[in-house]
């Protein structure tokens, strides 16, 4: 009995000791940088509303409408498989791919549950799987193994890469089984995007805006994580780092985005970077003035690093990445071939922002990272 009492006292004083040392730590942090967020007077609802109404839904509307144009162009091509119709279809395809760059980072809600990104833009695409699907006509595009045989990258292959000469591409795409596969891919993108857009408007918007909790399942925590995940994996690594050989040590030219059309790959990267920065600054697709986004939230909290506003550091760094990318050829494959060091420079600038976003910003906003780095095997 006595023994137990003594150990209880001991444990208590031990806990108090821990508590004291813990609180002294946090006090110290508080004194030097205002890192404690959760000031409930920041209008989280206004931010979520701005995101949903002026950024996310308009971006999906643009993308959806670009896909509908592409579907029409494909119909026209089917009716009249001519060089002109092929050119028109390619134009609409590029517009759709550009519009995709502004929705990719919003992998939340219906987009997340149906794996929209996996079905829209996994590259490099598999020529082999596409050929097998066209050959067998018995395939299930819902299967994960078919992520690499559908979406915008597969369309890039069909429209630009299935033969060397345009005349041959035209002939091949006029064959019924090829035409059917192309139509299937385009219609599928249209259908799944509509599904996401409709859900945003009819259901998810209300849920998204009302879920203001500051927790792992709250809308802000989730979307900020999604945006950083997008930045790290799809923008930094997918568009630049992987093809430039940052992770493998060898350049992988075939791993650039849209390698068959080629000349748009740099533009797609720029658009992705802009979309991310627009999200950060609350710049709406519809051209309204910036309002209520992460930049405002950070400024509201007074988040600084080394005496400079964190939001400024982040914008400066994203601008540096954009400036580094000015040096790149429009065709990133060509750039890797000519001078990969410029790709690596761009990567390095992109990487510097990862720390600001993932460490400093998340700490200031008191958001936990909800994804782990896969170890790649």
């Amino acid at each position: 009995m006595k023994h137990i009492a003594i150990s209880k006292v001991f444990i208590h004083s031990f806990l108090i000791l821990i508590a004291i040392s813990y609180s002294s730590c946090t006090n110290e942090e508080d004194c030097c940088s205002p890192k404690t967020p959760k000031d409930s007077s920041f209008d989280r609802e206004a931010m979520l509303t701005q995101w949903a109404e002026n950024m996310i839904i308009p971006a999906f509307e643009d993308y959806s409408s670009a896909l509908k144009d592409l579907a029409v162009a494909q119909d026209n091509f089917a009716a009249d498989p001519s060089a002109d119709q092929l050119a028109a279809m390619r134009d609409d395809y590029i517009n759709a791919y550009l519009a995709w760059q502004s929705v990719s980072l919003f992998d939340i809600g219906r987009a997340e549950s149906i794996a929209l990104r996996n079905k829209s833009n996994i590259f490099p695409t598999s020529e082999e799987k596409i050929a097998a699907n066209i050959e067998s006509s018995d395939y299930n595009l819902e299967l994960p193994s078919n992520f690499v045989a559908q979406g915008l990258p597969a369309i890039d292959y069909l429209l630009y890469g299935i033969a060397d000469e345009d005349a041959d591409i035209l002939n091949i795409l006029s064959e019924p089984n090829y035409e059917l596969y192309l139509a299937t891919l385009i219609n599928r993108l249209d259908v799944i995007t509509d599904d996401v857009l409709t859900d945003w408007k009819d259901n998810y918007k209300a849920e998204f805006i009302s879920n203001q909790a500051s927790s792992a399942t709250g809308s802000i925590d989730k979307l900020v994580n999604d945006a950083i995940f997008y930045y790290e994996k799809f923008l930094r690594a997918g568009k630049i780092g992987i093809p430039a050989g940052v992770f493998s040590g060898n350049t992988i030219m075939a791993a650039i985005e849209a390698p068959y059309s080629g000349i748009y790959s740099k533009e797609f990267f720029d658009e992705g970077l802009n979309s991310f920065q627009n999200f950060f600054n609350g710049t709406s697709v519809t051209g309204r003035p910036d309002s209520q986004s992460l930049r405002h939230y950070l400024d509201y909290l007074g988040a600084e690093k080394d005496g400079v506003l964190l939001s400024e550091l982040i914008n400066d760094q994203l601008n540096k990445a954009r400036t580094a990318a000015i040096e790149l050829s429009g065709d990133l494959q060509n750039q890797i071939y000519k001078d990969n060091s410029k790709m690596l420079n761009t990567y390095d600038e992109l990487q510097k922002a990862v720390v600001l976003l993932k460490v400093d910003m998340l700490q200031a906003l008191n958001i936990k990272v909800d994804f782990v780095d896969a170890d790649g095997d």
Partner: protein
Amino acid sequence: MKSHFAGSILIIFGSLFFISCEKNIPIDPDRSEIIVPDSYTFVRDGQSTVSFSGQTTRIGMATELISAMTDFSKTETGLLEMYMNKTVDGSEANPYANDAYNESSKSVKSKVAASADFFSANTSESATIKADFESWIIAQSKEVSANENEFATPGNAGQIADGSSARYVNAQGLEYDQAVNKGLIGALMLDQILNNYLSPSVLDAGQNIEENNSSTLADGKNYTTMEHKWDEAYGYLFGFSDSPEDPIATLGSDDNFLNKYLGRVDSDDDFAGIGLSIFNAFKLGRAAIVGQDYELRNEQAATIKQELSKVVAIRAVYYLQHAKLALPTNQDDSAYGSAFHDLSEGFGFVYSLRFTHDITSGLSYFSTDEVNAMISDLTEGRGFWDITPEKLDAISKTIAAKFNFTIEQAGD
């Protein structure tokens, strides 16, 4: 408190001693000096005495086997031949892309659970373990390959998305290729290194000590048998390196087995330097054999046994903890892919714990029953579909308790 203090002094003293003996130190004035080279380079009469071609051959065969397991054009027979390097009825087979492996009489299977210390008088367990691998290989073909184009659901094999990749799992969520890959790290690499080649029963077998003392070479070779046994242990860890005499620069990228995961553990700040310390122990132990200092040799073997056992345990905890983070928050069946992949790797590393070596007991850190209990915890009921964070923490705790690392250190 007191004993910990004494322990740290010992460690500090030990490392001082270790640093200072990097170069030539006379261990015993009557004996030759121990000369430790900078790289794993040992020569006699101007010729290298290091050889481990049998080990690189088996790593190569195992590499081909693993990649064939997710190539669904391969047949069950074809996969089994890659495991046995024989046809199923025991005649010559040529299952490998690399012809040198086809010409070899060696196989993966013959060295699975085949160490002198653990299995020479325990052939029934050895046979059970060999058969486990065989059953996973067969099931990959019968269950998973057959369902290649189906969705995995509880109770049904098929594919499931892990990010943008497709993973192919059995009815319980296990990827058999991962079970074989990570299981071989224990059953082949760890068992052969720790429980066979670094064991005095192998190093000192027959006339090995006398021959080593008199520099009597193995028939037609430039090495003594003892030197060669040590090198064979080294080969299972570093043999696939582009520069095996100096393997630290590329540590982790030389194979998909023990080297890879030593590299992974080494790149965790909590365990930084473990790769180099294992390499140094191999080097010093080999130099000790040349210098005929068997006590020093055994000390290095003990370090290697302890550290490599720890590496496998760390990785087991790592994957179980990562699986915990990857478990879906909703009950959507299609969201389990990332967790299943971690669990499949974790399953293989847990299985591999059977082949760890505790130098105080001379036995595995985990008995067969303990490992089987953890495996059945992971696979009971609907298997990975039913896994809970609590269960993963409990198993992690069981593993970490035997070593001087925490779940947090291993899990990040």
